């Protein structure tokens, strides 16, 4: 027995060899592209064509454009855009939590026999293209669309409102609508893992349902809440399309819009790359937190 098991592990190169194509792929098309962002952001300006040129050797890096962008963030137009992005994302992700928590809670505790049906309906938005979901709202929010019709019918509006003309509310609600399903799933998984006997014990010891929720369920779902919030905040910080489709105005510009604009504009590559780096640094904290919490959760599950 032990002989075969040793023989099994003797050829150590077998398993790394299986992993090799995937690892090489991710190094060449994931890590190297990241380095390219750095090389372009720290690159030099071609004085004749005014085009950015990447510098691959870190010793020759020139932080000029980087510094320029940082200066505009602290005390310039970019600062306003950063602040706006943070506010939008904060409100939209909190809104997602307020909408998503009751849904995930109902699904894990009270869905009963219909659980699969509910899950199916909750999963549906994942496989409906994001752009189609935004297209749906663009149609509804047009000046002569159903939303204005409904609000005027109910007497909440006197005249049709131009929802798509640069309203912060529209963009924030659009973000929440777009990403809330991504929050519900990790939250549901966390709530579903809670041993219902813990809640039962609290109830038996005299806690009201509300207190049992507050002191047992809520703390036990903390991990899921944080993971869900991170999962929706990451794409929200880099979102440019929701904004461009639902607002059509520079009044609601976010970081994502700036990045998309500069990267796709000739000569803007270096600025776009510098902004991308700053965004990366910004969300890196969230990403690392998420990875650590996932690996901790999987260790607990394995134990």
């Amino acid at each position, binding site marked *: 027995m032990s002989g*075969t098991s040793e023989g*099994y592990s003797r050829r*150590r190169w077998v*398993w790394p*060899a*299986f*992993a090799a194509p*995937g690892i090489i*792929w*991710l190094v060449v*098309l*994931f890590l*190297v*592209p*990241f380095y*390219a*962002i750095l*090389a*372009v952001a720290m690159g030099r300006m071609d004085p004749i064509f005014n085009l950015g040129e*990447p510098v691959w050797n870190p010793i020759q890096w020139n932080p000029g454009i980087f510094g320029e962008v940082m200066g505009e963030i602290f005390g310039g137009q970019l600062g306003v855009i950063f602040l706006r992005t943070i506010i939008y994302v904060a409100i939209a992700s909190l809104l997602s939590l307020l*909408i998503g928590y*009751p*849904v995930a809670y*109902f699904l894990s505790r*009270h869905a009963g026999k219909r659980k*699969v049906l509910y899950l199916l309906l*909750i999963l549906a*938005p994942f496989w*409906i*293209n994001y*752009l*189609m979901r935004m*297209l*749906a*709202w663009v*149609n*509804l929010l047009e000046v*002569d669309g*159903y939303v204005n019709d409904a609000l005027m019918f109910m007497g909440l509006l006197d005249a049709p409102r131009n929802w798509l003309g640069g309203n912060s509310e529209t963009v924030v609600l659009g973000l929440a*609508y777009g990403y809330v399903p991504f929050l519900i*799933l990790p939250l*549901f998984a966390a709530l*579903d893992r809670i041993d219902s006997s813990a809640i039962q014990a609290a109830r038996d010891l005299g806690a009201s*349902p*509300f207190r049992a929720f507050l002191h047992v369920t809520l703390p036990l779902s903390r991990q899921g809440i944080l993971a869900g919030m991170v999962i929706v905040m*990451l794409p929200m910080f*880099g979102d440019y399309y929701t904004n461009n*489709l639902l607002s*059509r105005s520079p009044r609601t510009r976010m970081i*994502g819009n700036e*990045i*998309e604009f500069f*990267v*796709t504009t000739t000569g803007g590559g270096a600025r776009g*790359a510098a902004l*991308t780096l700053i*965004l990366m640094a910004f969300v890196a904290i969230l*990403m690392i937190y998420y*990875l650590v919490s996932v690996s901790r*959760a999987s260790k607990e599950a394995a134990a």
Partner: protein
Amino acid sequence: MSVDVATTGEPIATPSGFQKVRTWFANPWGKPRFLKLFMWLYLLWSLVPVLIAIQFGFNDGRSRTAWQGFSFLWYTGDPDLSVWHDPSLRSALFQTLKLAGATMFIATPIGVALAIGLARWRGRGSKPANFLMLFPLITPEIVLGVALFLVFAYLFQVVDLGTVAQILGHITFTISYVVIIVRGRLFAIGREYEEAARDLGASAAQALRLVLLPMLAPAIWACLAIAFAISIDDFVISYFLKGGAATETIPTKLYSGLRLAPSPALNAIATILLVLSMLAITAAALFLNRLRKREGTKGSAIEELARLDI
């Protein structure tokens, strides 16, 4: 000692209407009416706009806000602007399918091999490799889009922006999803079957080919379907790596069309995309269900898909 609540001496009577309301307010969670109502309101909010969008793809007129009757005008009817006759929409449909076909057949084998390798490999380097595999899943898409755009523009200049770049980009973020799905199956299967085959004299390659791969087969089919669905659903990577009008996909076409010239044809082509996604996901769910039945696990594949923690 237990305290009996019934000994407080109050007479047990049928509750009056007022009492009903009172107990309901005291404990609205008894039967979760609020929650159930909330759930259904959420589902309506989440899905009805999309249903209306589907409906307007069948509108018998140019309007996207007023219903003018049912027709296939925007699918095949209109000689210039329907999905079938507008060359830009038709090419977007074929480009989407082309990218998804290439992506699923390249990303799946690479991902399956990576998952097997990472699950069995215990040496130095396996930990960083695991982290590297997770990063594409949580990197904001815009960052990966910019990174790939810059690398193709400045470093890998042999690859022009366009179809090949788009395929390479799609594969890059699809591999990780394949790994996650297969890794879950590998943990469920364990190493016992393989080791039994080895004890009975199979070589490592035989154990893999004759034991492990057949056990993984349904999961691999599911991965193909999911890779297809992920690719046709992608917007950001296709957007940054497109090279001209011929390489627009349905999602990028929806984006530019909505900004420039919206028409119900966009609703129609979005509906086609929706149907393709649903077919792929249904196929994936069926494969996963078959696996669960074979292993005698309770529940449905839907629950498993929902618990798929990244």
